[in-house]
Structures are given as C-alpha cells and as structure tokens.
C-alpha cells in the first residue's frame, strides 16, 4: 500500500498561493492521487484527482512529476474560508477500502 507523507501544518495569508506537497514513494502503477478538504464537524470534500502531469479545476491544481513519487496541491489566492485540513490519498479503483487517510495538513489562513 502506498503510504503518504504530508506536512502537519502550514500557515498562509489571504491572497497568497498555498502549495501542499505529498510524498508517496511506493505508489503503484494503477494508483490515482486524490485530495480532500475537511472542515471541523463536516465530512471530507473531494477537491481533485489526478494520475500524472497536471490537473486543474475551478478550485485547485494538482501537479504530479513524471516519477509520481510526490504530488503538490496548489490553492491559488486563498481566503479565510480555505482554513481546513487537507488530505492526500493514493489508491486504485479496486482498492478504495485500503486507502488510508493520514492526519492531513492543517492549513491556517490569516488576514
């Protein structure tokens, strides 16, 4: 199983770009990389998923280098409402049950 490593916490100011890097050295060929956001007392919210190179949607970008041993979630121009815990998960379509949410990265955005 691909274990992930993320920073425990990150601080940022409003309007800045926040980049959270996740290490997954033993990622398997069939594994996808998925990121979630979670606010206190709420369920996780799917942000973005990718396999390789770059994926972008309306809220974030996901950068995956060619060796896929890491990935970076980029949140452009964060606001106070982006203060949350962010989780990086790695898994394949037939093994979601083996996915492990780690402790995540606590992002705190201040004015």
């Amino acid at each position: 199983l691909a274990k992930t490593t993320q920073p425990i916490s990150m601080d940022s100011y409003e309007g800045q770009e926040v980049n959270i890097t996740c290490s997954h050295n033993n990622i398997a060929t069939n594994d996808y990389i998925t990121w979630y956001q979670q606010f206190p007392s709420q369920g996780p919210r799917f942000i973005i998923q990718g396999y390789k190179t770059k994926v972008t949607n309306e809220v974030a970008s996901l950068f995956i280098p060619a060796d896929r041993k890491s990935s970076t979630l980029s949140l452009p121009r964060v606001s106070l409402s982006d203060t949350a815990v962010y989780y990086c998960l790695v898994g394949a379509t037939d093994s979601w049950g083996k996915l492990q949410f780690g402790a995540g990265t606590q992002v705190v955005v201040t004015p």
Partner: protein
Amino acid sequence: DAGVTQSPTHLIKTRGQQVTLRCSPKSGHDTVSWYQQALGQGPQFIFQYYEEEERQRGNFPDRFSGHQFPNYSSELNVNALLLGDSALYLCASSLDGLLPPQHFGDGTRLSIL
C-alpha cells in the same frame, strides 16, 4: 438535489450497548462506504456496500456490521460498544465505487460513556 444525509447527528451511548447509524446516499449513487474518524485523526475505512453486499472491509472487528437496502441506503451497526468507539462516523457515496468517494455526509458524532 440532496447530498449524502446521515442520522442521527449526535448520539450518546454507554459501554456494552448497541447502536445503529443510518445513511442515505446522494441521488443516483449506488455505493456506500463507512468511515470512522477519531478526534484529530483522518477517517479510517470500515467497509463498503454495493448491490446490497459488503464488497470491501477495513481492519475493523466483527462488532461492526452493516446493511444496504434496495434503495441504496445503508446502516452501520456496532455491538458491544467500547469507549474507543467514540468517534465521528462518516458515510460516503459514489457510483459503482470505481472512483474515490466524492460525496461525504457530515457524519454522526457517537459518544460512549
């Protein structure tokens, strides 16, 4: 369009009791997964139901059981409650379960006294 709904939102039980938590998936979704999230930790996968069958199971004892109904709603049952079962229980739904869960409910907060 309602997303994933869970009930109740909060529950208090004592050790040794049994509890049933309920989940209604997002409209159009047929797969339900359950997670346990202890305070300060990430969610841990309990099991997944598809076509009324348990398809995958995480590392949880048999005290944790579930059920999926023909309308795709699901129940999580926990017997012989322990203090360590105190947690936020999350339900997630998806279509076919072939993608990571994209819709989570806001959970049931279970407290064991």
